[in-house]
């Protein structure tokens, strides 16, 4: 779970991370000020199934594209990228089109997020090491 770049508005990241932990997931909290390269390293080191990234300031297209490119280049195509935060409706469509697994905007109920995460991780082909 990470914020990318310089935006440190982490209310959403903190809350959703706790929701996931409370639901029994192993959550690696990367916090704020991450580069795409740092997240890539963490995904490899931790053998992560999914990456959650949260935005507020308008950096969402840049960083979600960059992360997906890095996943492809590093043969991590099955790692799910899930985004959340303040993202305009048109950009939600764009992000899903280029491969972001899901985008959760403000006001999404906890149940909806957990249901989606459960569904998408259960079909993941990755085998935990």
């Amino acid at each position, binding site marked *: 779970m990470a914020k990318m*770049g*310089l935006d*440190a508005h982490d209310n959403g990241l903190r809350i959703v991370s706790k929701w996931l932990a409370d639901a029994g997931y192993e959550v690696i909290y990367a916090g704020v000020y991450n*580069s795409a390269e740092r997240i890539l390293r963490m995904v490899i080191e931790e053998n992560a199934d999914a990456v959650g990234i949260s935005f507020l300031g308008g950096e969402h297209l840049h960083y979600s594209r960059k992360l997906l490119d890095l996943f492809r280049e590093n043969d991590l195509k099955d790692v799910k990228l899930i985004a959340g935060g303040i993202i305009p409706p048109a950009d939600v469509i764009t992000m899903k089109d280029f491969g972001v697994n899901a985008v959760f905007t403000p*006001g999404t109920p906890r149940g909806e997020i957990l249901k989606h995460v459960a569904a998408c991780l259960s079909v993941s082909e990755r085998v935990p090491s």
Partner: protein
Amino acid sequence: MAEDPKIEFDHAKGEKIPHFRSLSGIEYKRIYDREDWDGELPDGGEYPFTRGIHEDMYRGRLWTRRQQSGFGSPEESNDLLKYLLRVGQTGINIDSDIAGKIGVDPDYPLAQADVGLQGTSMCTYEDMAALFKDIPLDRISSTLIFPPPASVVMMGQYMMMAKAEGIPRESLIGTMMNCPFTQLVGPTFQANTHFFPIDLALKIGLDLMEYLIPRCPKWNILNVNSRNIRESGVDAVQEAAFSLALGSDFVDRLCKRGLDIDRFARRIGFFSAVHLDIFEEVAKFRAMRRIWARQMKERFGARDPKSMWFRCAVQTSSLTLTAQEPMNNIVRAAVQTLTAILSGVQSVHTTSYDEAYCLPSEKTHKLAIRTQQIIAYETGATKSVDPLGGSYLVEKMTDELEERIWELMKVIDGRGGFVECFKEGWVEGELNSARYKLADQMESAELPIIGMNLFRDEETAPDIEIFRQAPDMQAKRIQYARDYKKGGNRESARIALKNLYERTRSHADEDLVVPMLEAVEARATLQEVCDAMREATGFSIPG
């Protein structure tokens, strides 16, 4: 987890709200009467300023309409400032992008995708001059939103600009926020500690205050961002206690430097949130005025009444905005703006309804200014001082909040003050608990939010125009910063930076503002100045 909001909605029985607690959890009574409050009130402008810091309040002068603004390049933001002044803004409040606040230039790799997004991209003297082009610095007050050490760089650029325009620095009016704990997403630990050593940032902030006190007598040296504290999810009592405790920590440190409280206390201000619980918020501001006045008088020995003034700018809450049905935010902001006026604050930013999605457009900025003008000129809310004073409810609530705020301030004091509480992680723990609690309250609709957890309409897509930046803005700013650092004669900048490095390395306990300003005058960029000190202290930043 509540699947259904706890609301009774039965046509036969009528509609009923879910509970009668305030946002801070105080139970509202059925009715308030003389049993609850039978006290005396001071006059307006009379200690402890329950009714306002001025005798005449808005009868003498309206509050300043000060919309936080800034985006993209300094040139684009200059156009926006001129537009805002044209439609009726009366003060300037400049927000830089995050890079500007944390002391990196646009070409720094981790900054590149954020350049100009949440404020103006600024890193050179020329940027500052472009941003304030044609703005009369001695007639319009400007608030500059920078924590130290960036605050020193920006103050240096601002003073250079004034000098170039022939304006003596004694005439400059405005505020440098200058707080290293609250300017980046409230007092969250990680956000505020990863780009500069926090103790050194605090020390440099105090150096700047000491520098400005004799030299810029009309300039405000510190503003505690109580709003950012609140917006991280805490309640009104925590907001007030945290910010008043932090303000007291600064005053304490300035007094310990041997400065006379009556020479600087009047130049410290606060920037608070206004939330939606009308009477609790009014009570909060009244209680904060009383507490600050007593702190200044009794704890720090101030004699001048102006030193005891709790001067407060506000911005209506962004946390209360919803992405669902964004037009509803216009109503929320209007109620909050009215609440601010009923509370007797000194300046107001009305948050635009589209800020649930993006930076405000010119159109929504204008609507925010019009909201304030309608309240100022059409509603009559401004015509008497402290119009809610003497209401049993408001007086009782003021007393109750005051007591709770003092109690929490004592807890903070017992832990060594706010700065210590921040550094040891206590504040971080409090913020996180508050956030989780808030999320639960939103989920269960214990905190009712129309269009989000109550009366949600999934059928209609939000009707919103999104503010878009110029597509080449970031690339241009990145190139500009690169070219600037490569170009021209940079020898004097190199010498000044070397001097700043040496000074920080061996004499960090002495004043650092003067060597920083020398580097700024030699045209060093924001990051060059900050890097000299980072290198001297062996501090590395996220890359």
